[in-house]
């Protein structure tokens, strides 16, 4: 795996709708900009060999960083793959939609649920939103949220931006009735 750079965002929300949020609501995103492992190879039918090699390396790189950046127990999480214009979205999906990637985060976050994800193909500097859900109960409505990210100079056409996102709580000032109240 060839990494060009690693970018970390931490957001602390101290007030929302004019009301103080205490403690501040924290979210973190860590992104790795890597060379697309399939760049220049044309259509590759069997993606498994490079999934087996690259996905675990990415999981091991990103999972501890996002947990450390959050600095608090992870309550909600999500993942992202933004593929440069010369690649297939399938290349990004290949790297993130495998237990070989996601289980690193699941273990680090004491999580059990599926990781919600965003995949898209885009030029460098695209803005993307990473969806997050609760780490053990994907129906916990207070924890449905998104976090925005962008890397100005990535992905290049032959790169992929792969990321993990974590939140230490649900939405600030969350006050919707639980799903169960409508069933």
């Amino acid at each position, binding site marked *: 795996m*060839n*990494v*060009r*750079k*690693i*970018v*970390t*965002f*931490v*957001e*602390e*929300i*101290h*007030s*929302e709708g*004019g009301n*103080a949020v205490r403690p*501040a609501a924290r979210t973190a995103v860590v992104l790795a900009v890597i*060379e697309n492992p399939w760049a220049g190879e044309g259509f590759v039918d069997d993606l498994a060999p490079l999934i087996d090699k690259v996905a675990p390396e990415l999981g091991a790189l990103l999972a501890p960083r996002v947990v450390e950046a959050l600095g608090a127990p992870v309550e909600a999480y999500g993942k992202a793959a933004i593929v440069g214009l010369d690649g297939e979205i399938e290349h990004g999906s290949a790297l993130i939609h495998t237990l070989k990637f996601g289980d690193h985060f699941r273990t680090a976050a004491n999580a059990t649920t599926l990781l919600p994800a965003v995949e898209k193909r885009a030029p460098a500097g695209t*803005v993307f939103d990473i969806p997050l859900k609760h780490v053990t109960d994907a129906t916990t409505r207070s924890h449905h949220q998104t976090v*925005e990210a*962008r890397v*100005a100079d990535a992905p290049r056409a032959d790169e992929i931006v792969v990321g993990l996102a974590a939140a230490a709580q649900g939405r600030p000032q969350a006050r919707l009735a639980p799903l169960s109240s409508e069933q």
Partner: protein
Amino acid sequence: MDPLIRKIVTMTEDVVAELGRPVDRITRRAVAAAVIRNPWHGRGYVADLQPEVRDVAPCLARALTGRLIDALGGADRVEAFGKAAIVGVDGETEHGSALIHTPYFGDVLRDAVDGTSIIAFAEQRAAPGAPLTVPLWHKTASATRSHYQTVEIRVGDAPRPDEIVVIAAASSGSRPNARIGDRTTDSAVEITELEGATP
């Protein structure tokens, strides 16, 4: 009244490789940005900005500087610094300048990292989501060419028209693979030689 600070965003960037080869030394750049209520919003033209600057700027500088130092792993890791402000469209750019271009802000950042240089800066008025490129230079020797660099910050939902994004930035070293010499190594060039230069 609304709390002063709506949110604080901290971004770090580690460049590991350039053009496919590992960089000579991994530099970490960090930016911390506080989204605040514009303290002069709704008051029309305010002649004396000093009282609010005195109230607001030092606590912002402390909050941002602390996050930069944490992000870089210690004050001694800071080699270059910069500062910036993005004023929401209902404010004056002067409001942002007021918060960053006085000792109430700059001295806090400079002292915390044992700097002596003036601090590189940028300011603008813009809609939410506008990216701003923050210039950085060396904290004690601002003419150190290897440390001329920038880092970009963008907050998707800020500044609202009545807000200001106040920004501080730091770097742990030079540009990746910096190799354009310095004023001590430049050969002597006469301006007349440059006049005839064509691409």
